[in-house]
């Protein structure tokens, strides 16, 4: 059972890596167009960003490993987006793992509209969702990603993520972030209550050795709320708490 969960997690990471490989030839691609007549002059580029690749020492709970990454490839207006996030706990068992494949279109100066599918490998039972979202930069330079989901069973949920990069020096960056999950209906088999499910807040201090590689330390606070918290308690699980984080941010 344990091996299988690790395998599924590995598979989801492999999928993301595949996205990374897709993005990597972007450099070659940008060059490539010069061999063609210039009227089809559209530059295709890509990027891979792992905002979180970290291990958290629970100060009042279990230790948690966490990843949160995204990759895109495409033109200025139309892009394919791949997002993944998940958590491992208790000796590497994957608690949650999801992957999203999205089409993204530039709506305005700062905002992209995104739509696609999300697949949750964990928690079991695995589940597909439809996704629509808005990703961009809000006034004040806040990175915002808001998504709405409808599951294969018709359950509606949503997620909002906001983060901010405060440059302390040219390379030392303090990044506060908040993520909130909502659900319209409860989904007992996934231990999801209705209303606000959980809130996660973090403060990460990274050092940009290069723009690509930035190790960081930080703290996070996570809290399940309402019925979601009740489900967790009933199963003898933690409802949240503080953690000390060490990790690395990758941006290629």
């Amino acid at each position: 059972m344990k091996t299988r969960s690790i395998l599924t997690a590995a598979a989801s990471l492999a999928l993301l890596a595949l996205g990374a490989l897709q993005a990597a030839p972007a450099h070659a691609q940008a060059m490539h167009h010069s061999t063609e007549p210039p009227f089809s002059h559209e530059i295709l580029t890509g990027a891979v960003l792992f905002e979180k690749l970290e291990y958290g020492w629970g100060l009042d709970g279990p230790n948690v490993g966490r990843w949160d990454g995204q990759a895109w490839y495409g033109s200025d207006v139309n892009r394919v987006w791949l997002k993944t996030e998940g958590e491992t706990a208790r000796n590497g068992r994957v608690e949650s793992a999801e992957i999203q494949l999205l089409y993204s279109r530039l709506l305005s100066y700062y905002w992209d509209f995104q739509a696609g599918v999300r697949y949750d490998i964990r928690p079991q039972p695995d589940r597909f969702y439809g996704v629509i979202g808005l990703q961009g930069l809000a006034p004040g330079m806040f990175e915002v990603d808001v998504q709405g989901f409808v599951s294969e069973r018709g359950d509606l949920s949503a997620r909002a993520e906001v983060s901010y990069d405060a440059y302390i020096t040219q390379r030392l960056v303090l990044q506060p972030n908040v993520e909130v999950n909502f659900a319209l209906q409860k989904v007992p088999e996934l231990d999801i209550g209705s209303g606000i499910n959980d809130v996660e807040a973090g403060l990460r201090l990274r050092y940009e050795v290069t723009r690509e590689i930035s190790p960081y330390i930080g703290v996070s606070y996570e809290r399940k709320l309402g019925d979601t918290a009740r489900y967790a308690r009933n199963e003898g699980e933690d409802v949240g708490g503080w953690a000390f984080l060490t990790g690395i941010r990758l941006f290629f």
Partner: protein
Amino acid sequence: MTNSKLSRRRALGLGAAALAFPAVPGALAQPAIGRAIPREFNLTLSHVTANITGRRRPAMAINGQIPGPVLHFREGEEVVINVTNRLREHTSIHWHGLILPSGQDGVPGISDGFQGIDAGGTHQYRFPLVQAGTYWYHSHSGLQEQSGIYGSIVIDPATPEPFGYDRDYIIQLSDWTDETPSHIIANLKRDPGYYNYNKRTLASLISELRRAPDGATRSTIVSDRIMWGDMRMDPTDIEDVGGYTYLVNGHTPAQNFTSLFRPGETVRLRFINSGAMTHFDVRIPGLEMTVVQAHGNNVRPVTVDEFRIAPAETFDVLVRPRDGRQYQVLAETMGRQGFAQFSLATQEGLPALPLPPHRPRPVLTMADMGMNYGPSGLDRGTPMPEVDAPGHVAPMDMGGMDHSAMKAPAGSSQDMQHGSTGGMNHGSMAGMDHSAMAGMDHSSMAGMNHGAMGGMAGMNHGPAGGAAAGGMDHAAMGHGSMAMPDPLVNNVGAPPGARVLSYRDLRAAKPLYPVREPTRIIEIRLTGNMERYIWSINGNSFSKAQPIQLHLGERARFRFVNETMMNHPMHLHGVWMMPQVGNGAENPLLHTVNIKPGTRLDVDIEADAPGGWAFHCHMLYHMETGMMRKVEIVAPRTAAAR
């Protein structure tokens, strides 16, 4: 000063320009035959390994050298140039600034009938030289120019020049990067601030606050920060790309390219900016410079202490060093990232003089944001049929803007005009409608938004306002900090009293065209998205845009409006551009006109060369990411038939 002596010395000076790489023997065939048979030149493009910074990096060279060989032509002759492509990719060579038939201009897909040169192929260019002066040539395919496909052109005049000199040197400035150019685009696309290590930080905020003399200044500093944050823009973004080593004729500052002179001689320096992304501020401590040519055309000599040279521009200057000492010629980049430098000396091989500290880095102000370029489209007297594509035009929602904060923190302005607004044309203000100004309500400007801007239509000077309107700013009209930066004054950070070249100082020595009213005004808004690194003209990137059509024989006026925060040296192939700087018939003839951030400028074009012509920003990565158009000059009949 006999002719033979001149040409020998010239050969010496120019030869030195080509020392960076050994020339391929015999590559440049120049049979000394009479005028009837065109002289033939051979250029071979190939991949090479260059070592500029101590690392061996892939590069591209012409005849094995970077820069490519000097093409030395004579006015009135016809030349044949065979370009052989030994690259593994498609290529092209464009003769920058030369007036020639469209089919010989060398822009794949735009020049008439020219589709570029396939890998392994050879293309023969053949054209007459109808002009004299300093020009250059470069690849017009992808980013090959950044990799090393550029060289200089000198055309000797058919009639003697109105100035004399003893020595003649080409000074070709450029920017070299160890990175692959396509990698730079990918970096800018995913993070426009990738190369900016001069961002505003908490540390810089604290030190600014500590330096501030009083509470009012401190609150200005803080609210300025908040405002830039609200606008989601970065005032420290002056140069998009970093990591450059700046070269003079392929020589790093330490390699110290040297131009020889004997005290008392007059030395001609032909400055060519072949930098892909770099504006240079040029000065020679201890020497003044007399500008005698701009963009290959003779101008009435004007003596300056410093000048800014935008990418693709050329300025020929004369200097007269009297002392037998070593003079340091400094070309500091506009964003203060580095220097190109060389020496004027009486002997070769001297070590470079130590570089001075950088001048203060410019920081953009709200004025540079061009929040006040006034009405647009029809209101500005220009039909504007184009519809902006989503994401190309910065939202001008200044709702949260605090008027008090619009004063730039002292000394930080790129375009604080330290009394240099002298160029403002008061005469033309007579035509200003003061009654309309009365309607301007200061208080309403605090919450300025699109609506309020519409109200500024009353300030429109109409098409006749021309450059004078461009040169005039709101500061002059009593709006204080609402100043629109002067489109023609370059603030290079020179000491007070220093003479800094402006387009206003340039007067064509031999005007080509009489003064006449434009038949049409075409609005050219320079637009883009810094956040996504998209660049465009009138809100449309090249890949999506339609050509701009001009009628053969017409006098078109391009009304440039720079809505972005960056400088854009706009280059139109095939015809001269005449910025309306207030010199009447003597307005200079330029092939590239630098449009400063947040400014507008009228530029007239005599559409006398039929065919397809490229029109683009000469910041290489701006062009590559969309700031480009095709201009078609067609016979009026053809145009009517369409």
